[in-house]
């Protein structure tokens, strides 16, 4: 099929079906992104618009949640804010160290043995366990014997966070080059020392950012708390006894109420919750950008 050199060759875009199909497909792919932008934009816009109306210093700090029928201006969500911060904070305190240790086991001690592979596999499976099941679990294990408390909620959230922290920490530990470990071993350090003084610091940025994202996800969880804290109307700073409340459960309760006041408070709580989550996410990004030495 070699044309004679005298024939001028036409190298322009071949018109027709192939090019059109390619363009249609590209448009569709962009369309998929736009489809996702619409609800996201809509939600964020609505939350900001309606939530801003409810937010005030009183709203954020007043420790008494008013009955649903009361309009805006009475009481506030302070109890829920404190609840969310306490419960999520305690959950992070439990889950992050345990998660990092678990990841250390798989990455540094497990090697190729079957137990490490099983744990890693099951951690992945555990990330798919519905949050409501975790709530029921802590209910049957703890609440039935020791009653509702913020701590029970923390346990449930910690169970949700654990596999996520394990997985993300493991990914970070894996990225630390072996030469770093070998250099430390060559100086006579034991495995524990190598891990704590060399490997973990090297992976720290990534581990912290992964943990922050897990905390952000936990702060927004509702279902497990429903069974563990028994949403109440006043602040309970004692995490270890007595029912408690949180922003997520308050939003859930208020969303089902027909009263305008309750719904307005729900929007305010939603805006507060999104703000907290958002701040955590941004801090996680900053940590990734500035402090992560070994990125993928």
């Amino acid at each position, binding site marked *: *099929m*070699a*044309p*004679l*050199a005298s*024939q*001028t*060759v*036409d*190298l*322009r*875009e*071949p018109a027709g*079906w*192939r090019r059109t199909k390619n363009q249609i497909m590209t448009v569709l792919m962009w369309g998929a992104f736009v489809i996702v932008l619409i609800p996201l934009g809509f939600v964020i816009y609505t939350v900001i618009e309606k939530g801003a109306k409810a937010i005030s210093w009183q709203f954020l700090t007043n420790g008494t949640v008013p009955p649903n029928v009361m309009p805006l201006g009475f009481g506030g969500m302070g109890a829920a804010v404190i609840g969310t911060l306490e419960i999520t904070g305690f959950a992070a305190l439990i889950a992050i160290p345990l998660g990092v240790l678990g990841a250390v086991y798989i990455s540094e001690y497990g090697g190729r043995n079957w137990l490490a592979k099983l744990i890693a596999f099951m951690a992945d499976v555990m990330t798919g366990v519905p949050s409501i099941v975790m709530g029921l679990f802590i209910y049957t294990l703890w609440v039935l014997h020791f009653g509702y408390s913020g701590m029970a909620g923390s346990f449930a959230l910690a169970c949700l966070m654990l596999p996520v922290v394990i997985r993300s920490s493991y990914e970070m530990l894996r990225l630390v080059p072996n030469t770093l470990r070998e250099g430390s071993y060559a100086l006579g350090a034991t495995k524990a020392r190598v891990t704590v003084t060399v490997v973990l610091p090297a992976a720290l940025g990534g581990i912290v950012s992964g943990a922050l994202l897990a905390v952000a996800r936990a702060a927004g969880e509702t279902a497990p708390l429903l069974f563990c804290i028994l949403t109440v109307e006043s602040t309970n700073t004692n995490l270890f006894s007595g029912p408690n409340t949180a922003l997520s459960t308050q939003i859930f309760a208020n969303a089902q109420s027909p009263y305008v006041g309750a719904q307005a408070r729900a929007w305010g709580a939603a805006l507060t919750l999104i703000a907290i989550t958002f701040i955590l996410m941004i801090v996680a990004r900053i940590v990734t950008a500035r402090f992560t030495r070994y990125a993928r």
Partner: protein
Amino acid sequence: MEQQDQKIVAKLTVPESSVRDEAPRSGNAVFDAKNVSIYYGSFRAVTDVSLNIYENEITAFIGPSGCGKTTVLRTLNRMNDLIPGARVDGAVHYRGASLYESGVSPTAVRRRIGMVFQKPNPFPKSIYDNVAYGPRINGERSKRKLDDIVERSLRQAALWDEVKNRLGKSALGMSGGQQQRLCIARTLAVEPDVVLMDEPCSALDPIATGKIEDLMHEIKSRYTIVIVTHNMQQATRVSDRTAFYSVLRDEKSDVRTGVLVEYDKTANIFENPQDSRTQAYVTGRMG
């Protein structure tokens, strides 16, 4: 940094490459490259290459690592477009038409100028579907015609007898040499004008290599072939013309770039090279 780089490179005096270019008696120039320089971002990988490639010949590009021979090869079918930041200065004409003019469609170019890669890359599909891929995307739907094309291409690639009874099996189940011949068959299935080969035998054993070299001689009468090779014996075995590339290094700034040193009939390059660098390379003293 970019500015500084440009200035220094401009000071590099690129010695005239000895391009001995007598058009063979009945052939035409398929490619006509003039003053081609290729940049990756601000790094000039290849400087000022000019040569003609002739129809129905096998032209070999040889030279040490990093001399830009693969870069020049990929410029001939616009494959460098796939690398972000790649840019071509100068003119490349294919049968009189400029390849880098605006309005030129890379897909149209690549349909006419095919490429076989260093590592065989069959699709994870059946042998039949691999060869039929090209014709299918060009609109061929008739099963009978596709069967014909597949058989003809596999015959040209000297693979038909080995696979004719298992066309439906996965291409990944074949040996490396067979996979590479499949890739050649796949390229021939779209009936290109030119076949570019980027070190096609470097991942293969000597027997598979021999089969592919025989194949090249067989199809030469219908196609124009340009082959990049690290193996000088291979260049002497298969090619009619050889282009020797090398790395030019500026003493002061340590800026390196690839240049075309000498281009001539293969016999001359290896038996009677004009440039000392060519001589050093082909006698094994360098590279």
